[in-house]
């Protein structure tokens, strides 16, 4: 006997239990800058500490809608109604004719971008045969954004600031998380 109000259990028989909800999540990698040590020791820079604080703040910020998928992931559901519509956005120019700025939501999955620290980063940077190589078929496996975290106490001069930008943009993280360059 099925009790009223109990949602029916229906799991996909496809491995990984894919769903449209999972396919609608944009992955965002968070990485501390100027904190990468070749010897693998845990970084003790101010940026690394700010990175930890930011993750804690995001978890605290998300308490209204706790959508923690896993220990190393944080799912944010942002209603479209709380977004600021860009001034140059026009309905007659967008391919998304049914999109409404007052209905629906954006889903962001934030994770620690260091491959030693989280499974999503490990899959995207090291185990690319299941992520980047298949983003034509499963665009949800791509990384939508890379966010660098920097504490200015780690910057002695503007050269350090530019070094952090290079680390984010060219040298490391952006290049690692984008699709392969041919």
């Amino acid at each position, binding site marked *: 006997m099925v009790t009223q109000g109990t949602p029916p259990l229906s799991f996909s028989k496809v491995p990984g239990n894919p769903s*449209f909800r999972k*396919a*609608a999540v*944009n992955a*965002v*990698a968070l990485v501390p800058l100027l904190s990468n040590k070749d*010897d*693998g020791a845990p970084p003790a820079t*101010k940026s690394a500490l*700010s990175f930890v*604080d*930011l993750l*804690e*703040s*995001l978890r*605290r*910020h998300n308490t209204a809608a706790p959508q923690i998928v896993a220990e190393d992931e944080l799912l944010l559901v*942002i209603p479209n109604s*709380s*977004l*600021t519509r*860009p001034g140059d956005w026009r309905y007659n120019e*967008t*391919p*998304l*004719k*049914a*999109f409404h700025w007052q209905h*629906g939501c*954006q889903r*962001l999955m934030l994770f620690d971008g260091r491959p030693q620290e989280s499974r999503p980063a490990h899959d995207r*940077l090291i185990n*690319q*045969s299941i992520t980047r*190589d*298949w983003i*034509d*078929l499963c*665009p*949800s496996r*791509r990384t*939508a954004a*890379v*966010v*660098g*975290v*920097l*504490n*200015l*106490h780690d910057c002695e001069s*503007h050269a350090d*600031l*530019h070094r952090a930008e290079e680390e984010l*943009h060219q040298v490391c993280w952006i290049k*690692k998380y*984008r*699709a*392969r*360059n*041919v």
Partner: protein
Amino acid sequence: MYDLDKYSHYVVSLFDTKQWALRFATPPYEVTAHGRNGERDKPVERLFVFDSFDDECQKIDLSKSKMGNSILAFPPSDPEHSVVMDLHLNVVVNDLAVAIFRALEERIKESDKVSRSKGESTTHNRTSFGRLISGQSAGNETEEPSATSPNLSLSNMATLVSPENKLAKETSPASDKAFPKEDSSSPKVSKPVSHVPIANKSTAKIAAAETQLMTPLDENWDFSQLSVRDVEAIRKRDIGRREKAAADLSLLAGSPLDAYERYLKAAELCKTGTP
């Protein structure tokens, strides 16, 4: 006396570096996700800067940063400023969500543009073959296959469109199958159309240069070595795939209704593109 621990650690880090380089290397197959230019699939960038308001950090001018509007200053993260931090996070996360939405929108536009260009080239080819079938091929059109070729019979042209086409059955009752056997005793039986080499070199080059959506299971074909039929099949397949990818991107952009319409359209394209 050498410090063995120190040197072993050095060797391990060297090994790791090689492993990283190998792991981050480009995969062996050539054509990639969103075309041959990886820059087009670059993720959205943001740089969150902390403690920029401290007196010690005032010597760093963030306006000299190369990242422009992508660099965002954050309030202190201590418990005393948690309320300010929450408000700031709300603004920053919303801005990030809008930036990702715009990036997805641009990718859908690019994909639609490529689909349109592929569809137009397919239409152009159909028009050319229609003229060939009706015998109106102009002599100065060197881009089209030669009308004197024995492969360009009406039945072959019909089988090019569809093996089930009436013309393919009615005009060649002796060889009503789309792919006659090569060991046929009759010398007049034409070869299958799929073995006709593509005559339009410029079209082949354009087709080869076009971006494709591929998976590691696909092979990267040299279009100049393929027949017209195979090139058309690959193009149709790619148009269907592109529509499906645009549907996935619409879903990521938070527009499930657009995704639904595109999924339906992709299913129809796959039906028509599959012989």
